[in-house]
């Protein structure tokens, strides 16, 4: 059923991505590919992987942007982009087959690849480019929030988080229930003013991004000290040097 759940999901599992910490190492994208190519959506097919124009199915991509304000102050921001598991997911409602759906229990948006016809309309409807088309299998694939990992009782509890989260070497990615105001992720969003991407598209994304922290204000004068051998004044010099200076200045 591609209608969205009638009652809003009790849990809204999602990611909180800290743009202040991300160093753009692409480890999350690589581990995502690694887990999912043998998980629920397996395989994440590659086309021409060793050729000149390698292409393939990826659920997570790391962009790098530069920002520049009017005073010429710039920043470089690494920006991981993956499915935001929207509350009003347009990729779900456009699906003609019911292959695309949003889970009532935890809000995860998934594709049932057994009934997907590969019409690609969901990828047109998604503003965020979250979907990847598998040309060899003729079906659409997407981030599952590692649904086959986060509930996997065979894994130690600390490993039951999406692959991108468990692999991030800087701790820039957080996973949890964004519908629970008491959860760690919700507290983080509240403390750091986490935001949604393209709110004007009305998709109500669940994932949040934490903005880079403001640059440290320069409170002390940090103009570099120049070494000038010809001092004009000896006021700051030690006592003996001041005497010599006075004698020589006569």
């Amino acid at each position, binding site marked *: 059923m591609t209608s969205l759940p009638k009652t809003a999901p009790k849990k809204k599992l999602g990611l909180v991505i800290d743009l202040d910490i991300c160093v753009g190492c692409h480890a999350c994208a690589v581990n995502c590919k690694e887990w999912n190519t043998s998980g629920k959506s397996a395989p994440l097919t590659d086309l021409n992987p060793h050729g000149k124009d390698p292409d393939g199915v990826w659920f997570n991509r790391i962009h790098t942007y530069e920002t520049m304000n009017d005073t010429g102050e710039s920043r470089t921001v690494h920006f991981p982009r993956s499915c935001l598991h929207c509350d009003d997911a347009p990729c779900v409602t*456009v699906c003609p087959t019911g292959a695309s759906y949003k889970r009532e229990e935890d809000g995860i948006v998934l594709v049932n690849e057994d009934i997907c016809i590969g019409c690609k309309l969901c990828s047109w409807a998604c503003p965020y480019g979250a979907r990847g088309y598998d040309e060899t299998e003729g079906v659409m694939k997407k981030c599952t929030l590692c649904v086959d990992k986060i509930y996997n009782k065979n894994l130690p509890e600390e490993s039951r988080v999406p692959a991108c989260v468990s692999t991030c070497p800087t701790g820039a990615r957080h996973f949890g229930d964004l519908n629970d105001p008491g959860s760690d992720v919700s507290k983080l969003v509240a403390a750091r003013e986490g935001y949604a991407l393209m709110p004007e598209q009305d998709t109500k994304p669940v994932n949040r991004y934490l903005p880079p922290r403001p640059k440290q204000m320069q409170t002390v004068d940090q103009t570099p000290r120049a070494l000038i051998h010809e001092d004009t004044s000896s006021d700051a010099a030690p006592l003996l040097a001041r005497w010599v200076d006075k004698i020589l200045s006569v």
Partner: protein
Amino acid sequence: MHPAKSVIYFTVATGAGYGLFFWLALLAFLGVLPADKFMGFVMLAIAFGLIVTGLISYTGHLGRPERAWRALSQWRSSWLSREGIMAILTFIPMGIFGIYWVFLGQNTGFTALVGLVGAGMALVTVFTTSMIYASLKAIPAWYNIWTKIGYLVLSLMSGAVLTLALVSAFGLDELALFLLLPVAVLLLLGLVAKVFYWRHIHAGRVVSTAESATGLGRFGKVSQAASPHSADNYLLKEMGFKIARKHAAKLRWIAIVFGFVLPFAIIGLTANFIEIRDLAAQIFMGIAAASCILGLVFERWLFFAEAKHVVTLYYGETKV
């Protein structure tokens, strides 16, 4: 958006086919269409042919065509599903109308009533086709009323031009003259609808920006510093289609000339200076119809090629 040949053919052919059926059913209802079996066969074969090949062309573009039947299940939320269901349901009155006309030589009374129902359903089907595109908020060039108006008017227009060519080919000069006014009006309406569509999408309205896509606008202008991958991926191939502005302007003129101006001029001159029963007039009416369809192919190519998707904002586009 990538202008896929299969989808261009699908929208142009089904639009013209449903439009042609609309006019045949309307003329039958008005009692001005002779119930000649052979003529019925030829005209309906063209209408059905355009619709069926269009639908097959779309189905062929699916990743899993053998599962296409599954697309009929989600009519509650999906316009593509609604389109599929309407296309199939419309075949019922169309088929009954066709059987009565082609095999029993009847196209008035009950047959015409069924035909009229089919004509109405044909228009609803064209509307559902337009909504597949007009319901996608992530593509502002499609998410507007001119998309819907364009598909409906161009379907009625290309159908009317085809009907005129066909009734001329069968030597029905009175019917051809009767059709001149609606054809002329629709060619003008079609041109106006497209001009308004193009004005709308080039009016400089901005829905989303690189700043809103990344949320980094608080730090100033956002630009791409490094690409997330070394070669084009599915997103860039499907949604990142770029067309040079000067080519777009040229192609718009080609669409306007072939789609609207030439058919209008050819039909007008032919009707005024040549007897419709003359072979020359029949050929000219055929040329006008061919020109119209060719123009619509350019128009539809542009409809896809000029439409920017907001996902391009993550790949260097600054505003959509």
